[in-house]
């Protein structure tokens, strides 16, 4: 070769694997419920806690499989804790400030994360009651994105002692 190549200091070694993932029957009941606008959890046969979503189909406290029966939860819930997002970042879909909240749906024993809107961030508080706002039904899929966000329901706040066990 006429020209010497430059010293090699770094190489590209991309790898990729294509997986086919399966949610299992218990989580799938939750996904199927979302297609119908229902919020379906599962109950632990050991401690009776209701999980929404029924992630991995088991109760991590007891290490047992969740029961087969669906338990409809919500649609309203209680803010148990929240975070005000003031910082812009790459890929952000919502203009700050906005509130990411942990919401304990009525009948569930574990909170889930969702977006809280239609309220000033300064007015959000623990114990605040909220309700879901659904996307147009034509856009529904097996995803929590069917609910675009939660908003205050106007119900009276819940006392801390009522959700202290589910934090």
């Amino acid at each position: 070769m006429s020209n010497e190549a430059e010293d090699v200091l770094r190489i590209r070694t991309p790898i990729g694997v294509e997986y086919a993932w399966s949610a299992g029957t218990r989580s799938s009941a939750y996904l199927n419920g979302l297609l119908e606008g229902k919020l379906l959890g599962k109950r632990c046969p050991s401690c009776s806690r209701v999980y929404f979503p029924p992630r991995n189909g088991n109760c991590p406290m007891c290490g047992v499989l969740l029961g087969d029966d669906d338990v409809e939860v919500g649609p309203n819930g209680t803010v148990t804790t929240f975070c005000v997002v003031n910082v812009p970042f790459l890929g952000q879909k919502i203009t700050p400030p906005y509130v990411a909240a942990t919401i304990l749906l009525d009948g569930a024993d574990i909170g889930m994360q969702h977006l809280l809107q239609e309220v000033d961030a300064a007015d959000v508080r623990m114990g605040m009651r909220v309700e879901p706002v659904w996307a147009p039904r034509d856009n529904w899929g097996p995803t929590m994105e069917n609910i675009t966000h939660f908003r205050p329901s106007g119900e009276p706040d819940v006392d801390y002692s009522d959700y202290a066990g589910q934090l």
Partner: protein
Amino acid sequence: MREVAVVSTAHSAVAATTETPIETLIPVIDAALVAAGLERRQVDFWCHGSCDYLVGQPFSFVSAVDALGAWPPIVESHVEMDGAWALYEAWLKIQTGEADTAVIFGNGKSSVANMFRVMALQLDPYVEAPLGPDQIALAGLQARVALDAGVITERDMAEVAARSRRDAVGNPAALVSGEVSVDDLLAGDKVRDPLRHHDIPVMGDGVTAVVIAADDAARSLTARPAWIRAIDHRIDAQRIGGRDLIGVPSAVAAAARCGLGAGRIDVAEIHAPFTHEELLVTRALGLDAGATRINPSGGALVSNVLMAAGLARIARAAESILDGSADRVLGHATQGPCLQQNLVCVMEGACWVPCVVPSSVSARPTTRVAGQTCPSPVWCGRLPIGRLRMRA
């Protein structure tokens, strides 16, 4: 050293499941605990073997803790390896005195991707993995080296497959089984020359779980524990072009450290997903196929649940002690491309074995006494040097 034994085992394997890995784990862990008569809260230590690459989920082992009932907090650990190495860690944990009982489990869901490609991602990431070979290509390279050297024959390989499938009849975790003639197998095409279809493992989704316990705990949990008399693992250089693919030096070294030659082995369960691997490991371990039953479960060839199949070999070997059908057995596990890393675990049924002093001293048996140091001043070939703590 503390005496540590396998006291119960449980397995599952299917070709493909829609369950999540956690859903598959729970019933098998339950079965192992029930067989041992242990409650979850009585388990001192949990150790898990799995591989994130198999599920495409970083830190997937963290969610596996959900299967254990980990609240209030438990003592647990994980190896990014086959569960056989988790058993080694649990054995060490018990040796430290920090635990008396442990549950070890290995699991894999092979059906979610082309695992032969995934497993080859273990290769050197600079000059080998970028070429994109799969595990079958690498196995073929190793098999041909042994074939060309005359160390094994294609008929030997087919005999391994025929025997494995025959032995697998009645094993619910086997994914292929039945009578088949060696000549019929040899009439098949070389789908990946030099390998035929029967030389390549049948992949599975599943779990193996094992309960081990120390000293009196083991004796209280089962009538005939499978005492781990020796366990060791060794590794060879990574790159397959620069090591002895026929001799499998790490298996030879692990066997020597375990004093494998010090007595008869009734049953050997060898972790050999490919047929030629069983032949090479049998040779490296110095096993006499006439005196030792090799892979009576059918082996990993008929049910290759990744990250569980090695632990399953130890479990299957232990089962022949637990059921009284064998007195001294061997479980072997391998990891890495082309038998790179090898673990040997020797288990015995006798609770109070005479310690065989090596021939350089004499062949006389010696009885170990509670609370006393082993009378042999040299490596006895069966137990590591050190103080022996035995039951009074």
